[in-house]
């Protein structure tokens, strides 16, 4: 019997919804299209099956999410993952944190950065550029929003181009969205 995970980890748990997911067998054509179910792709996660209750949103959110996180130019993949991680720490989404901490480690090999963030959360001390990204992204994720022009200036001073600055805004913001689904509609279990 698995248990609910309450602490930050880079080991990816499973995700168990609080609401009954849509059943693939009884899904409407619109739900199937939003889930990108085709005869050759029938593997759909409980998360996507849960979001299929609102196919109009799901259909738009999936490509938007992929474009923000996996676009080719601009901010590096690892730094987008850091943006995702920053929001997920503020919103305490254990599942999102695990997935994106694990991707960050996979891209950078920097276990120590993730360990520091897990230990000290928003007070973590990082190298200059990562610190600027982490502080800006965490402060953009709070309510009220704590980020200031001085925090944005630190991005520019750390050498980020305007496109890279835009990409950290987008990667933190899209996790403001993802965390509000994943953390509130279900729980991580391991």
């Amino acid at each position, binding site marked *: 019997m698995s248990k609910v995970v309450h602490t930050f980890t880079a080991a990816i748990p499973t995700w168990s919804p609080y609401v009954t997911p849509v059943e693939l067998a009884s899904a409407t054509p619109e739900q199937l299209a939003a889930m990108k179910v085709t005869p050759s792709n029938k593997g759909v996660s409980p998360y996507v099956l849960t979001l299929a209750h609102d196919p*109009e949103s799901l259909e738009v959110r999936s490509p*938007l999410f992929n474009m923000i996180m996996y676009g080719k130019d601009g901010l590096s993949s690892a730094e987008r993952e850091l943006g995702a991680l920053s929001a997920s720490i503020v919103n305490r989404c254990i599942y999102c944190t695990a997935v994106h901490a694990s991707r960050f480690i996979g891209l950078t090999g920097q276990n120590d950065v993730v360990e520091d963030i897990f230990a000290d959360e928003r007070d973590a001390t990082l190298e200059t550029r990562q610190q600027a990204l982490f502080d800006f992204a965490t402060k953009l994720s709070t309510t009220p929003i704590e*980020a200031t022009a001085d925090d944005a200036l630190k991005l520019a001073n750390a050498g980020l181009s*305007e496109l890279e*600055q835009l990409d950290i*805004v987008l990667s933190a*913001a899209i996790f403001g*969205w993802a965390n509000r689904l994943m953390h509130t509609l279900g729980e991580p279990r391991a």
Partner: protein
Amino acid sequence: MTLIETMAGVPEGSRLGQALKARAEILRLSEAAHDAVLVPREPGGLSHGLRAALAARMCRHVGDAALTAHYESYLAHSHDLDVVALAEPGGACGNALDDAMARHADLLTLSPREATRQDIETLKAAGVSEADIVRLSELAAFVNYQLRVVAGLKLLKAVEAR
């Protein structure tokens, strides 16, 4: 021009304006997401008026007056007078379902980290369907995304203008 660009007011000729041009497809999809949560073809138990009222309420929580006004105009166009009180933080309309949804929108905006299984059980006990719980979550999640993109852009714009 998309709503996010209008709200952020980034000068087209600036370096940030050029960056936005490079992310035009993301802005277009963000606009499509706005339409999907505000005026969906299938609104379920969340009328277009209720969605606009909750969006305005969440924008007030975060203190964005221009986005609040945008959603207030959607609310006015819906002619849904029953839900008008929900557009203000703390406001209630007397309908148990709608009031429960407004309290959940508050939670998702102010302290999503505090959300637990119990909050979903509370919605179910108030009579909110499972599909409507997902619709409400997507609405709140999107509005919080949009508020942060606009806020972030305004900060980047201010730095470039220094």
